[in-house]
């Protein structure tokens, strides 16, 4: 499926912004025009090979503004679970209890499920082993980590992120 004009424009602007940030040239006209040219070239090639579609480059935000609250919350979870796993690794008794559990994610879009699965994996102590249809297999280092997931705090957070319109 070919992207519409707005996808093309948004990809081009995104490339241009990234080029400016990474190059750091703001006042050299020659280099700036080369940058603009290369962005146009990349966008044209992406359009020719039909790599621009709504899924790969959403011009409208598919996520609600709650993501700005979700990231700090996720960061806190990552830090807390890092400390927990660190304590268990350094404990001479190695108090681990590896567990495999099945979860039923409540998100209805692919993007929401991917965010949920990635968040689980990003948190040390829990790793998403498979995501198929509407079930999620998680390997957890400890039983308490698995039980925390089953309580579903993270699941609810990610579901709130999804917009009804997407």
């Amino acid at each position, binding site marked *: 499926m070919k992207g519409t004009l707005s996808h093309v424009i948004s990809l081009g602007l995104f490339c241009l912004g990234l080029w400016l*940030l*990474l190059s*750091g040239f703001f006042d050299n006209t020659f280099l700036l025009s080369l940058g603009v040219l290369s962005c146009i070239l990349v966008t044209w090639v992406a359009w020719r090979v039909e790599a621009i579609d709504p899924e790969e480059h959403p011009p409208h935000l598919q996520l609600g503004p709650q993501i700005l609250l979700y990231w700090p919350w996720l960061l806190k979870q*990552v*830090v807390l679970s*890092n400390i927990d*796993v*660190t304590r268990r*690794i*350094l404990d*001479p*008794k*190695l108090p*681990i*209890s*590896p*567990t*495999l559990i099945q979860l039923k994610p409540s998100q209805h879009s692919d993007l929401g499920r991917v965010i949920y*699965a*990635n*968040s689980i*994996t*990003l*948190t*040390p*102590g*829990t*790793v*998403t*082993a*498979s*995501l198929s249809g509407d079930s999620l297999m998680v*390997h957890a*280092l400890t*039983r308490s980590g698995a039980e925390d997931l089953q309580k579903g705090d993270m699941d609810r957070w990610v579901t709130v992120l999804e917009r009804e319109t997407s």
Partner: protein
Amino acid sequence: MTWLIDGLSGLALLGGMFFMIVGGIGMLRLPDFYTRLHAAGIIDTLGAGLILLGLMLQAGWTLISVKLLLILLFLWFTSPTATHALVRAALSDPENPQPLLYEETPPSKP
């Protein structure tokens, strides 16, 4: 102010090193492939994160910090996907050892 920034940056770098070493110890101590992935997760998240934070504090409000932030973002977006691919590949072959699971009786070995 510089001493404060330098101190915070040094703390972040030391913390990052600490978590990287703990991750390494974990990879040696934990019993099987699947549990070792959790130790690798420490290196990916807090280890790399704190070291990049320390470097960002050194760089200040410059484009270098923006690049370091981009590295951090890409790392945090891609490493879960890589870990997920590893687990899936390991589980897909029935010849591979299955994950060690905690039985109802607590493990007695030290």
